[in-house]
């Protein structure tokens, strides 16, 4: 009372010694990880690019004129013009939206399926687990890109759409297996803990047990898997688009740009190089982020 200063120091000393939560510990680790910061900055840049492309000072990506075909870089178009006479920089910037949107939505879909499958299989065990696990085996037994080609081709056979939802559904329905396995094993690990038994004795039903008690302790690994999946989904979307079964028509996409620039690469390299760089950096950013977060949550793996 007489010395408020001493009280505050004592409090902060207590604050320092307070045991940190798992998340707090992980955050402390992350803050010191250079790779995490590089990834975080890159992710922020590309997410901003996807939301408000206008702030990057790019022109209109659909303003194309054949008279400017393969013109070199200039003050108007930093990366020059492509075969159609479109501004390569503008197209690359506006391409971020489709890539990240497809990545996010397909990961969300894969995550939801994986969550439900993994949670059900892990919680109920027995024959439910056996059936669901064999289902996972069958989907994992398919070579990913080959199955994706067939599925995306099938879904986008209607020429009126530009393939946006077809790609999302394809990536979602084929990509949930790892997430489901991770979920299943962490549910099995935590369902026999004492606090779950205590909650069950207190009368919690399966739904409440899963949502309130088991799920929160299984999220860390799950989120890491999804972050990395987000990166690989963006890469796969570009690959499918490049092959001609992903985004189509008038969609602005890095995969389409890379595909169209291919045949003319001897006359103009910029239209190939820049979308490739943007795509590689985006994928790298999400995978690095996932990697850094995993290291922080599970130091054993290092």
């Amino acid at each position, binding site marked *: 009372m007489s010395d408020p200063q001493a009280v505050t120091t004592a409090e902060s000393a207590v604050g320092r010694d307070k045991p940190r939560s798992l998340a707090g510990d992980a955050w402390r680790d992350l803050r010191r990880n250079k790779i995490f910061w590089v990834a975080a900055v890159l992710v922020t840049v590309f997410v901003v690019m996807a939301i408000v492309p206008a702030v990057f000072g790019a022109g209109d990506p659909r303003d194309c004129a054949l008279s400017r075909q393969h013109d070199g870089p200039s003050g108007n178009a930093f990366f020059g013009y492509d075969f159609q006479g479109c501004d390569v920089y503008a197209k690359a910037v506006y391409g971020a939206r489709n890539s990240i949107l497809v990545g996010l939505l397909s990961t969300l879909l894969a995550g939801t399926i994986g969550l439900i499958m993994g949670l059900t299989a892990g919680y109920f065990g027995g024959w439910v687990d056996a059936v669901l696990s064999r289902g996972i085996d069958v989907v994992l037994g398919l070579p990913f890109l080959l199955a994706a080609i067939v599925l995306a081709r*099938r879904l986008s056979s209607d020429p009126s759409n530009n393939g946006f939802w077809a790609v999302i559904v394809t990536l979602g329905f084929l990509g949930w297996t790892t997430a489901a396995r991770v979920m299943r094993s962490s549910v099995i690990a935590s369902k026999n803990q004492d606090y779950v038994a205590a909650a069950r004795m207190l009368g919690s039903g399966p739904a409440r047990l899963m949502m309130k008690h088991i799920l929160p302790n299984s999220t860390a690994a799950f989120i890491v898997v999804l972050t990395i999946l987000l990166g690989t989904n963006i890469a796969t979307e570009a690959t499918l688009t490049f092959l001609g079964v992903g985004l189509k028509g008038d969609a602005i996409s890095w995969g389409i740009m890379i595909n169209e620039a291919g045949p003319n*690469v001897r006359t103009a390299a910029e239209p190939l190089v820049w979308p490739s760089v943007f795509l*590689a950096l985006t994928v790298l950013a999400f995978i690095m982020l996932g990697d850094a977060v995993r290291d922080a949550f599970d130091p054993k793996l290092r």
Partner: protein
Amino acid sequence: MFRYLIRRLLQMVLTFFGATFIVYALMFANQTDPIQALAGERPITDSQRLALTERYHLDEPFLGQYWHYMKGLLTGDFGISLTNRKISEMMADAWPVTIRLALIAIVIVAIVAIVAGVISGIRRGGTFDNVTLVLTLVVLSMPIVVLAPLARLVFGIQLGWFPPTATRDAGFYELLLPALVLGSLVVATELRVTRSAVAENLRSDYVRTARAKGLTRQRVVGVHVLRNSLIPVVTLIGVDLGNLMSGAIVTEGVFNIPGVGFNLFRAIKTEDGPLVVGFVSVLVIVFLMVNLLVDLLYAALDPRIRYE
């Protein structure tokens, strides 16, 4: 061992039917006009329509169609492309160059992954280890659609070190650049697995025993540690094969190598549905077979697996 074998074979049968059924169902089930879907957006004549209906037994119920498809697959009849070529013949033409490409890629990957993996496993936390870890992360996240066209542009066209395209009878040198691109898809995971296996085995009891016996460091690492560290790498072969297949589609397409991947690449571009289904089905079967073999090999190499 016997029980493991039986269980694994039963699992294989299930996966085999499940996977082929999914591929087939995706292609044909629930479509208002499956024939038009096969031909994509191309116009289709009445006689073609009739021929396709007959070939795919589209006038029969779905399970009947699937039965005919499976019978074809198991007897080596993979169908006919829209351009009226036998798919089995096209495959026979395409396999040699693809196999050469894959072999070069696998040899390069094995050398790089094992040498670098052992070094960084021994010197964990050192400069070499840290640099490799960052490099593998970068390689791991490099999409093939970025790597293949860029490698062709830089090393094939601008620097001119390698030929930018390859023929059917391409030799080692022509296939080297595409093989490097293809190999980069799998090298990172193999390196990481080798590294962690080496690091783990170095701490094991048998290594301490070997050291205590007075064996040289070279012999301990080269014989005792390496042999046991390569067991988990073997399991990766199955997973890698899937990656190599997907990679081959883009790589062969970009470098114009007339292999299996290139045929599939072109089939997608020209909207040749039967060709896509035929090639994908065969690749799926190859993938499943190799994975079965890898699992059996794994059980033979590591006796601990059998008793699980």
